[in-house]
């Protein structure tokens, strides 16, 4: 059982209203030492949720605790142990990477200079280079280097791989994989790119239109979600199958998507006179798209 003290992140009934967007009744828990992928389409509310987590935006209502600190009031103490990198974060363009390293080192005594230099070499960053001369990928890597070298307890990464070329993305994800070997490290990784999230996360939370629509461990998702192709002869009707969230028929063929797959479903179909042709595992992207589509259609409401 998870106690409150084991939770790195805890949202309870959190809401925030803007003129054209509402973040509604967010409940979210992340255990220390876990890697959570936070997936949503553009404008779904990922960044707003993360900004509330960081204390940069104050929630209208609800409780937020991060590493035992109540947000936003204890944000200064909390942020000492949080490393935050977001896609829309920029370092000072007229200063060098080395100046940024010295600046961060003056704030965080835990800053590991040797590790920072090692990361610079691995990311092909030159400390004497000014930020204005860096490519987008290099800027993201520089921001990540500054954060990783502090060895924060909680890493909050808001779309860090957005806009990166495949090589830079792989380098960034590779470095994050290295960081994951430290089991005490907690990572919250938001992205609309499910492939990136799938590579490194052990739990997944989906958000859509300002609401958390599903949350659970990644393997559980991949095990539970299936797409079944069933031959349904005329006069036969399919039995009610648990967790069916999408059903599309063309002639005799019906394609079912379920989020609660059980091998016994095959027997249920057979007993009803239908034949199951295929049972396909779904990728995280397919699960995400199906989940969002069904919620929007109100199937799971």
């Amino acid at each position, binding site marked *: 059982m998870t106690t409150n003290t084991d939770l790195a992140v805890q949202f309870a009934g959190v809401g925030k209203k803007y003129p054209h967007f509402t973040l509604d009744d967010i409940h979210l828990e992340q255990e220390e030492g876990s890697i959570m992928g936070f997936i949503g389409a553009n404008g779904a509310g990922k960044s707003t949720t993360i*900004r509330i987590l*960081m*204390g*940069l*935006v*104050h929630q209208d209502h609800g409780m937020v605790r991060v590493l035992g600190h109540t947000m*936003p009031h204890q*944000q*200064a*103490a909390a*942020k*000492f142990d*949080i*490393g*935050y*990198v*977001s896609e*829309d*974060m*920029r*370092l*000072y*363009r*007229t*200063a060098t990477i080395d*100046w940024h390293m010295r*600046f961060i080192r*003056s*704030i965080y005594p835990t800053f590991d200079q040797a590790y920072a230099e090692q990361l610079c070499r691995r990311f092909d960053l030159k400390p004497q280079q000014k930020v204005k001369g860096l490519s987008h990928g290099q800027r993201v890597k520089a*921001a990540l280097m500054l954060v990783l070298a502090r060895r924060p307890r909680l890493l909050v990464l808001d779309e860090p791989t957005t806009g990166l070329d495949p090589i830079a993305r792989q380098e960034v994800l590779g470095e994050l994989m290295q960081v994951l070997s430290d089991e005490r490290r907690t990572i919250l990784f938001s992205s609309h790119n499910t492939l990136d999230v799938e590579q490194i996360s052990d739990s997944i939370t989906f958000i859509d239109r300002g609401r958390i629509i599903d949350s659970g461990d990644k393997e559980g998702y991949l095990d539970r979600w299936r797409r079944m192709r069933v031959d349904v002869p005329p006069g036969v009707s399919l039995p009610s199958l648990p967790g069916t969230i999408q059903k599309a028929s063309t002639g005799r063929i019906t394609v079912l998507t379920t989020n609660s797959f059980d091998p016994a479903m095959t027997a249920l179909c057979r007993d009803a006179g239908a034949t199951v042709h295929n049972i396909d595992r779904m990728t995280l992207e397919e699960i995400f798209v199906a989940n969002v589509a069904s919620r929007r259609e109100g199937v799971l409401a």
Partner: protein
Amino acid sequence: MNFNMIRLLVLKDWYLQRWLIIGSLVGGAMALAITVLTGKAGFFIGLILLVTVLVVEGAQLAVSTVITERKEQNLAFVMSLPISYREYTMSKILANILIFLVPWALVLSGCLIILLAAPGAVHGLVPYVTIMGAYLLVSTCAILCVTLMTESQGWATAAIIVGNVGFNAVGYLVAHIPGIAATMFGVRVLWDSTSIGIVLAEFASVLLLLTLTFLVQSRKTDFL
């Protein structure tokens, strides 16, 4: 309040604005030299340059430390550091005021020394110049106040324009206050109650503007 973090953020702004500080110091020193060394015409050109240096520095500071920081998306980086928004606001106020005070003190003290020590200088101008110097400090604080509260280039520009127009208006009005007008071109420095009252009111305005900025900013809930 984490004063060590505030100190580090102030030092950061000092470093990032180092060329502006150096430029305004060099510009101020050159304008002072022109005032002293180039005769009567040079005296007035030098005064205009001195005012220009301070006006440009005050306006440029607020824009580059607040608006540019937001526009170039550095704010997310700064606010990811272990600070609250109150500490961020405090650091911005201190950085701007301290940076501005360096050339301001140089220029104002230079002007006053010239007025008191230069051969043939009109000593009676000392209260008037002090009032106008203090006005530039008030104007810079007002620009900072508007810029921090609105974080808008448009409002900052409006504040800069109002501050500049205000300089001419205040200069004209103060020069026509009977007590000041009667003595400003005299050979003696005469601080009457009107002059002292205006200078005190100006410094009170500085405190009021900065306190107001801090209090309003402390109540903000969204920073990005």
